[in-house]
């Protein structure tokens, strides 16, 4: 039966694995981007972070970041890795929705969907 395959220990293991894999993947992408970025710009003068200018529009949306990363831009690849980092807890919540649904726990499907809704609301601007 479905619920025996989704017993609590299994869910714990799956959630733990998702978190670990997500962080590792994100860190690996960030490291690649960092290497590209430093190889190209390492000898330049560092930017002045004392004055807040805000990132260019390209670095604020998923489509812009993806485009920059595919172009081979170091900053783009780093930002893509950072998106994977933000997506890691989101993936964990999606997994929880599935687990509670498989266990037939309707109350917690609703609870988990509320959390997912809040996360998607936050990312909405970046997805547009």
């Amino acid at each position, binding site marked *: 039966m479905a619920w025996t395959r989704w017993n609590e220990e299994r869910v714990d293991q799956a959630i733990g694995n998702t*978190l*670990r894999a997500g962080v590792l993947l994100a860190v690996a992408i960030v490291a690649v*981007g960092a290497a590209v970025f430093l190889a190209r710009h390492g000898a330049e003068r*560092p930017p002045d972070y004392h004055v807040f200018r805000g990132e260019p529009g390209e670095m604020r949306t998923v489509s812009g970041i993806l485009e920059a990363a595919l172009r081979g831009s170091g900053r783009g690849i780093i930002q893509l890795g950072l998106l994977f980092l*933000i997506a890691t807890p989101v993936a964990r919540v999606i997994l929880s929705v599935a687990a509670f649904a498989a266990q037939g726990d309707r109350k917690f499907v609703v609870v*988990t969907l509320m959390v997912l809704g809040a996360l998607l609301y936050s990312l909405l601007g970046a997805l547009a």
Partner: protein
Amino acid sequence: MTLLSMTALLWSGALTAGLVGALTGLGGGVVIVPMLALGFGVDVRYAIGASLLSVIATSSGAAAAYVKEGITNIRVGMFLEVATTMGAIAGALVATHVSTSAVAILFGAVLLGSVATSFREPPGKSGDGGEDRLAGWLGLEGSYRTALEEVHYRARRVPLGFGVMVLAGALSGLLGIGSGALKVIAMDNVMRLPFKVSTATSNFMIGVTAAASAGIYVTRGYIDPALAFPVVLGALPGALVGSRLLPRIHSNVLRLLFAGVIGILAVEMLYKGITGRL
């Protein structure tokens, strides 16, 4: 100075911050934001963005281990994440409208409060706060095994705990920190969950809470990749080493020293915020 040497400095600073954050139990964020703002002269908004991402990395890494051990109460965590994510979104939206001085002053105050609470005596759990119908309805209970016995517990005073979690989420979104200390207070002191369960579940919740405001920070242009990468790549190993060392450090002298450092950072954030020199 070249970009490469500045990156190396940022990385080692974040490594130290992650280490100190784990050893004091306050988390990396509360050390990283003052380090960037006071030490490197980074605008508070960039500092908050970079810190928030390092918070997601360190808490998710630690949570993976706790969840597998079965100490984390996922039901309690998921339910309270409704509160923290709502708070985090509100905090991030407010952050884009208030001055950096106001953020610095609030940061200093929260920092002082965290240092103070880290030295409080473990509260005597006098009385159980009575039965909570919401806890029964949602099944906010669990058990974990120690070497000696199996410990059963059930959450109390759920609405009050939920309220404190909204505040914890708001501070996380506003200041770019994990708010781990406040989350533990909500579960341990308010909801009367076992301390071990509270700390593990707090860690589990921090990543989701931070992700809820990180999305908003990306779209507002607060996340600078060149600044964020040395911070994330430094804080993560720093926190991992710190959490390994923690059980072996019995000396309160070291903890006192670190708390003193954080206290000084708090006063400096307050001073710079009030005089508007950030």
